[in-house]
Structure formats: structure tokens, C-alpha cells
């Protein structure tokens, strides 16, 4: 007997002290910044509010509610502890007009605000392995009615008994005998705590006996306050998917979307009533049962004097107040959270993420993520309707250009599916998506190349290391003869690109990939010029972030900061800028990539986009049409889309017939800023003759504006320009000396 008690003693104290509860980490989206002039329409604002758990009502009387009236949205913003400080709950009015925020006011004072922000959506929790969800509360912060009410309902002699309550048991036995079935339990809160600790439904006498011994041992070791706090945080109160909701702190958020200290008496009664059977009395599934149970509890509150008869009546008249759905539908956006875990894995052990209750602040934009998932799902469905394989899969990465912050990530055509994450893990040949780098390297040789330099698009045969020969073909099977760099890039000619690449050197191309932060594990063979390099969509996004930001590379980020559960700063991932060399050549290349969309392989894009905004992009298709890529960017957003078959079978896809369609579906839903085509130091726009590439003047025939890297400008000028200069000379003489000549 003694060794047995010693064993139980060890078990129960280990559990009580050692556990200290595993707390899931909470993952937050980026906080939406609101300021006059910010691009935002009503639909997107409501989407953001809904995804952050706000509910629309007739009035915004409590934190978490909003009201729409005409173009004005009144939001009762919740309090939130941001990494740089806490902000109190506050009512704000946001007036929208013409796709932007027109004015923001503090609803209480009527004062105009220059800047406000929403509390971020909680997008996921990284749960302990035993799948428990919990928000810890301190016994000191628990409403007194919960503490006393719990005892009134579950264990009236809690303060006197030593862990088991013989009187309670006696009463229960009598009541059960009278009823002829089990209607009352005699378990104390301490016994219930033991039961919850060891999670067993076993009802044998031996089990009950063990529980009783353990309850006595707990009471021996710990005081009543500690036991009650443990109970309040431990008791099982509901189920959300695979995750068990433990403790009143989490249950309060789960059922009411309110912190425990804000609950009304009837809400406290409902939670206490749930202890008896969280699924039987589930207020969302069985509101009538839950109501009856709640009213029983309220009656006990009144009977024991915790509420006056009048208070109890008022509480009974109130509705359940349970939200239709829990604010966080468990975890969303698994693909993005994979990226978060990946970034954090460099610092944290998986176990810490699951148990330390960390607060993780990320870059995700919930509205853009929803749009991205919809674009992939609907886009692929539409492709199937047009006769492309129904087996097609897709991936998408969307990032903010200047900061490299990942705003959305989709790893499967079904955005909610948990599984293979193609955005992070599918390594596929990138095809022509690599070509802009070949042309970039050429433009950096300003004494040899500019966008109008001519190269041969002619068949060529290359001897490979293994003795075999390689003869690259063009997509259309035609060689186009002498073409400009601009034409060869915008129309994605293979033969011209390989010739150009051979002049540059494949090692230079691989070195550049490396410099852009991409580890391309590939032999230095000429087929690399045509994209025989396997990269993930995320890696391709990193490359194009550099281009889109005019050479100001920043490492892509999904996590901004991590805090402890109490708000202490643990780690921060600041913006780090890594400027590329020869940024003037990148700016010139950016112009060329806008021409891919204007008149090249992506010329179908403007119609799909349906709005007049300058976009740069590049299509990519691999051998036998296995992979479809589209990379495109504006000044504010860069996104990469991949479409193909998981088994790498021919998919009848091209860059423009598949991935570009998905890309356009997303971008037509986003507020866009046109690509920035101002040239930095070291490059400038010049008027040139479209036919012969000579310098010319704006008013001359065939004149077009093209950017040139300094030192690459055409040496010759058109007759029209010479004549114009003679005229200018004369007119300047006239200006200077004020006389006719």
C-alpha cells in the first residue's frame, strides 16, 4: 500500500508542478494600418474585419463589433498588445470614398486621426502535441462570481474538505438511490482536477479509489487557491476540431469572443454549466439544453445568495450571447504557417513553439491571402473547363516589393488542405523565367549591349560534356534572324538567348543567382540559360523581389517579431537591405519586362487585368509543357505563380495559358501602383529611332523612348535630330542675344 501511495504521490505532484501547462503559440497576421489616402474599399475592409473576428451589428457598442452606414464604417477596435506597446480599445470611424480612406475619426471625441490600426487577426495556433488549447488565467484576475459560483454548483464544501467530501458522496448516493439512476456526482473539484489531469473515462472502482487518494495528496501538498487556479485552467470545456478547449480563459474566448473578466453573470453561469458535459450542453449545437442548464446554474446562484433574485431573473432573460462561430476557426492558412515555422526553426525548437505560449507577429495579409487562395482555386477550375488537365496543381507567393514581407502563400489548389506545400517545397524547372537575368548581365556590359543591340536568333548546335549535341529550338519552331535584345526578351526567343548567354558565360549567371540569395544546385551547362534549373516558387519570388525593388534586395520575411506570453521581446526580424550592384541595369531591365506585358509573350495580361496599370512580368514554360510559370510585379506587389502536375507529366500548359491566368485573377483584386520607371543615377531615357536605333528627337518619325545604361547610348544620330539641333542652336542664339539672324 505504501509504495503504491508513494507512486501516486509522485505522479500527482509531477503532473501538478511539472506540467505548468503547455501553451500553444499564437500566430498573428499583420495589423492593418488605416490612414487617409490608404487604398481600401468597403469590401476589403469588411473582409479584414471579419477575418480578424469582428462582427457586423446595428451598433458598435462593444469591442469586436462594427457598423456600416453608407460609406462610413464605425469600428469598436479591441485592445491589443502590439510589439511596440499596448493600445486600448477605441471606437473609430473610417470614411471610404473612391477606393481609398477619406477620413478617420475618433468616435468619442470626433477628432480626426492621421493614423490608426486594427488589432491583427489571430490566424493560427501552434498547439501542444496533446492537442489542447488553453489561455491561462491568474486566479486573481478571475471574476469572483466564477470562483464562488463554481463552488456553489460543483463542490459546496470545497473550502472545508480534505480533497474528498464524504457528506457530498453520501448525498449523491441517496439522490441516486432515490432516482434509481446516477443523477448526482459526489466528486469534489479536487477529484475532478485529478480526472482532468489524467484524462480517463475509466469508471472502475479501482480508478475511483486512486483518484480519491490523489485528491487527498494534492490537498496535502497545495493550498486551495492553487488547486482552484489549476482547476480553472485545466477543466475541459469544449472541442474545436481536433483541439480540446481547456480552462475558462480559453472557453470564454471560444464561446463569447470576450476575455473572462468581461463576462456577464449569465455567461459565467453558462460556462460553469458546461463542466457537467461540454458536448451534451454545447451551446452552439444544443442551445435549448445549454439554456436549461444555464438557468439551473443561475437558480443555484440565487439559492446560495451569489445573485439577488432580481439579478438572477435579469440574467435568465438574457440570451445565450454565444458567437455563431469561434473567432479563430482553429488554424487557417497552413501553407503560410509552414513558412513561419521554417523561419522560426532557425531559432526555436519545435517543442518550444508548441508549449511556450509565444506570440508570433507575421506579415500575412488575411484579405490578400483569401484572394490568393480564391485565385488559385478558381483559376485552376477554369483551366479544367477549358480542357486543361483536372489534375493540375498550383502554388502562389505574394510579397510586398519594398519590404520583402510575404503577404500570402498558397501551396495547394485547395488552400485549406494540409499537406505538400508546393510554394516552399516543389522544385521545378523554371524555364524562361530565368531569361531576364541573362539580359541583365548583358546590360551590365554597357560597352557591348543596350536594349536595341542586335543578336542572332538562328539555329545553333552545342557540343555537351558527354559528347552529345544540344540544339535549342524556339517555342514557335521558327528562327527569327537578327533581333534586338528587347525583342528577344519580350518574345522569349530561345536561340537568341542562348547565343547571348554564351557571350556572357554560364558561370556568371550562376554566380548572380547565388548573389540574389538562391542556391541553384546545377552544373554550369548552357541549358541553364533556358531555365534548366530547379527552384521553388518562393526562391523565384526572392529573385524577382530584387528586380521589382529596382535592385534593393531584401530577404523575404514571414515573421516580424516573437514575444513571450507575457509580452517580453524574444526575437525581432528587422528589415535588412542588400542593394545589388549595377542597379541602373536593373531599372533598364524593368522597362524591358513591362514590354513583355505590352507587346510580348504576356500581351494578353492587360485585358485579363482589366485596369490600366503598368505591370512588368515574365512567362515561363518548360519542356513538353510540364510547368507553367508567371512572375509579375507592380511597384507595390510581386507574385509568382506555378502550375503543373505533381508527377511532372506533360500538362499542356504554357506560362500565359495557365499561371498568368491565375496571377491576373489575383492582381485584378489588389490595389496596384504602376511599376516605377524613373531611372536612377547611371541610366537615362533617350529618344531613339525605332527602326535603326539611332538617337533621335521626340518630334522625329519613328521616335520611341528607351532607357539606356550610361555608356551604352547609341553613337549615331538621325538626320532629323541633327536638323533639330541646328534649329535649337539658332533659337538659343535668339534667346541669348535677342536678335534675328
Amino acid at each position, binding site marked *: 500500500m505504501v509504495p503504491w501511495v508513494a507512486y501516486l504521490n509522485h505522479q500527482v505532484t509531477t503532473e501538478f508542478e511539472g506540467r505548468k501547462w503547455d501553451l500553444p503559440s499564437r500566430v498573428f497576421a499583420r495589423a492593418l*494600418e488605416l*490612414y*487617409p*489616402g*490608404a487604398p481600401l474599399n468597403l469590401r476589403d475592409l469588411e473582409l479584414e474585419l471579419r477575418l480578424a473576428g469582428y462582427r457586423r451589428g446595428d451598433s458598435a457598442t462593444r469591442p469586436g463589433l462594427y457598423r456600416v452606414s453608407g460609406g462610413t464604417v464605425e469600428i469598436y477596435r479591441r485592445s491589443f498588445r502590439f*510589439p*511596440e506597446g499596448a493600445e486600448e480599445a477605441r471606437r473609430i470611424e473610417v470614411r471610404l470614398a473612391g477606393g481609398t480612406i477619406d477620413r478617420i475619426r475618433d468616435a468619442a471625441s470626433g477628432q480626426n486621426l*492621421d*493614423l490608426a490600426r486594427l488589432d491583427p487577426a489571430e490566424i493560427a495556433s501552434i498547439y501542444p502535441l496533446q492537442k489542447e488549447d488553453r489561455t491561462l488565467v491568474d486566479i486573481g484576475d478571475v471574476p469572483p462570481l466564477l470562483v464562488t459560483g463554481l463552488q456553489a454548483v460543483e463542490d459546496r464544501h470545497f473550502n472545508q474538505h480534505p480533497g474528498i467530501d464524504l457528506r457530498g458522496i453520501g448525498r449523491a448516493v441517496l439522490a441516486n438511490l432515490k432516482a434509481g439512476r446516477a443523477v448526482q456526482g459526489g466528486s469534489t473539484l479536487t477529484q475532478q482536477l485529478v480526472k482532468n489531469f489524467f484524462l480517463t473515462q475509466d469508471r472502475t472502482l479501482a480508478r475511483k479509489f486512486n483518484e480519491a487518494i490523489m485528491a487527498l495528496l494534492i490537498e496535502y501538498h497545495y493550498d486551495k487557491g492553487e488547486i482552484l487556479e489549476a482547476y480553472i485552467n485545466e477543466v475541459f470545456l469544449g472541442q474545436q476540431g481536433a483541439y480540446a478547449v481547456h480552462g475558462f480563459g480559453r472557453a470564454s474566448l471560444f464561446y463569447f469572443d470576450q476575455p473572462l473578466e468581461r463576462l456577464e453573470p449569465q455567461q459565467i453561469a453558462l460556462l460553469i454549466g458546461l463542466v457537467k458535459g461540454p458536448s451534451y450542453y454545447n451551446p452552439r449545437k444544443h442551445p435549448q439544453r445549454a439554456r436549461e442548464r444555464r438557468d439551473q446554474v443561475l437558480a443555484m446562484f440565487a439559492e446560495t445568495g451569489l445573485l439577488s433574485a432580481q439579478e438572477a431573473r435579469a440574467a435568465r432573460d438574457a440570451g445565450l450571447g454565444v458567437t455563431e462561430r469561434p473567432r479563430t476557426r482553429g488554424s487557417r492558412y497552413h501553407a503560410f504557417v509552414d513558412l513561419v515555422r521554417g523561419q522560426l526553426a532557425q531559432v526555436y525548437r519545435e517543442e518550444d513553439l508548441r508549449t511556450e505560449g509565444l506570440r508570433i507577429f507575421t506579415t500575412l495579409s488575411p484579405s490578400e491571402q483569401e484572394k490568393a487562395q480564391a485565385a488559385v482555386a478558381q483559376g485552376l477550375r477554369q483551366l479544367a473547363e477549358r480542357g486543361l488537365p483536372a489534375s493540375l496543381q498550383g502554388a502562389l507567393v505574394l510579397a*510586398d*516589393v*519594398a*519590404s520583402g*514581407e510575404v503577404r500570402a502563400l498558397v501551396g495547394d489548389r485547395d488552400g485549406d488542405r494540409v499537406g505538400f506545400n508546393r510554394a516552399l517545397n516543389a522544385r521545378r524547372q523554371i524555364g524562361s523565367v530565368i531569361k531576364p537575368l541573362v539580359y541583365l548581365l548583358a546590360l551590365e556590359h554597357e560597352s557591348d549591349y543596350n536594349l536595341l543591340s542586335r543578336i542572332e536568333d538562328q539555329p545553333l548546335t552545342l557540343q555537351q560534356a558527354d559528347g552529345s549535341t544540344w540544339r535549342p529550338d524556339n517555342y514557335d519552331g521558327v528562327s527569327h534572324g537578327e533581333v534586338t535584345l528587347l525583342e528577344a526578351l519580350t518574345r522569349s526567343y530561345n536561340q537568341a538567348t542562348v547565343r547571348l548567354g554564351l557571350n556572357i558565360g554560364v558561370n556568371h549567371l550562376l554566380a548572380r543567382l547565388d548573389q540574389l540569395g538562391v542556391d541553384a544546385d546545377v552544373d554550369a551547362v548552357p541549358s541553364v540559360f533556358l531555365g534548366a534549373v530547379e527552384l521553388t516558387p518562393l526562391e523565384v519570388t526572392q529573385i524577382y523581389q530584387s528586380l521589382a525593388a*529596382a535592385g*534593393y534586395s531584401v530577404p523575404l520575411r514571414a515573421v516580424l*517579431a516573437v514575444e513571450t506570453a507575457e509580452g517580453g*521581446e524574444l526575437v*525581432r526580424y*528587422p*528589415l*535588412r*537591405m*542588400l*542593394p545589388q550592384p549595377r*542597379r541602373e541595369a536593373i531599372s533598364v531591365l524593368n522597362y524591358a519586362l513591362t514590354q513583355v506585358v505590352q507587346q510580348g509573350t504576356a500581351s494578353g495580361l492587360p485585358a485579363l487585368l482589366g485596369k490600366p496599370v503598368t505591370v512588368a512580368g515574365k512567362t515561363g514554360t518548360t519542356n513538353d509543357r510540364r510547368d507553367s510559370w508567371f512572375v509579375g510585379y507592380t511597384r*507595390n506587389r510581386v507574385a509568382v505563380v506555378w502550375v503543373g502536375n505533381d508527377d511532372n507529366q506533360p500538362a499542356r500548359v504554357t506560362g500565359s495559358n495557365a499561371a498568368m491566368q491565375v496571377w491576373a485573377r489575383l492582381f485584378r483584386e489588389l490595389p496596384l501602383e504602376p511599376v516605377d520607371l*524613373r*531611372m*536612377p*543615377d547611371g541610366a*537615362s*531615357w*533617350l529618344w531613339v529611332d525605332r527602326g535603326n536605333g539611332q538617337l533621335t*528627337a521626340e518630334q522625329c518619325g519613328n521616335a520611341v*523612348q528607351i532607357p539606356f545604361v550610361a555608356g551604352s*547610348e547609341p553613337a549615331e544620330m538621325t538626320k532629323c535630330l541633327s536638323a533639330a*539641333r541646328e534649329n*535649337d*542652336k539658332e533659337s*538659343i542664339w535668339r534667346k541669348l542675344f535677342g536678335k534675328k539672324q
Partner: protein
Amino acid sequence: MNHPLPLLTLTLLLSACTGWSPTEPGSGPASPSAGVQTPSSQGSNGVQVFPLQNPAVKDLLADAGSAESVGDYGKAVVFLERALRIEPRDPEILQSMAEVQLKNRDYEQALNFAVRSYDSGPRVGEICSRNWRTIAASREQLGDRAGSVEAAQRASACESTPPDRL
């Protein structure tokens, strides 16, 4: 007759579609370490030609300034990043970031943000000279003496009024 007009005309044509480019460095007397501590506090007689700042970032810049003044550079960076999320190419915010990085002795990032600010800024006037003073100080700390001297000279060149465009 030999006069400079063809050359002038060509220069004007070449610059017709671009912003004004600063003149080449002259013989500035600035010492490379001048303004390491307070690169922005030096006087300026240059011309400020950049548009007004978005009021949304005003308080954030003030908060960053407060954090910086008590030496909490980490927090200053958080405020500045938030401001950059709203106005990613604002030369004032980028330069403030460069100056915080400089104080925080992250010379590489100080250099990079200052270059970014110069690129997206007016390339003349007060902000331009702050850009080049930070670049000079960072380069010096990174061991690039020649680059530092050149940057200091460009800082002085920012102060001169640019020629009007025709």
C-alpha cells in the same frame, strides 16, 4: 568659331527625361568622420525640393525619434519600419533609418539605407547632404577611406543649387 553650345545642347537633351544629376565631387573640405554622431544636425543651405510628407507617418517618426534619443534603437527601428510600410520610398524615413543604424553601429545597413534614400530622394539639398554624410561615416567605419572621402565631397556638392531645367 569654337563655342560650347553643341555640348550644352547635347547635355540638355541627354538629361531631358531624367532628374537632375548632381555634379561630380568638387574639393570639399569635410573630414570623413564629420557628423558620425549627428549627421543630420549640420546646417544646410541646399534647396529642399521633395513633396510634403504623408501625415500618417508623422507620429511614427516622432516616436522613432523619442526611442532613438533614449538609445532604444531596436524600438526606433520598429517605428521606422512601420512608417516604411506606409511610405516605402520616403527619403526622410529611409534616411532616419540610416541614421539610427549608424548610431546602432550597423554600418552596412546605415550605408544601404542612406543609398536607398538618396536614390529615391531629390538628390539635392539638405536630405542629399545627410545621405552622403551618413554614407561617408559608414564607409569610413567599414574601412573604405577613399569611398568615404568621395562621399564627404558629394555631401558638400548637395548644398549647391541645381541648374534650372529648360
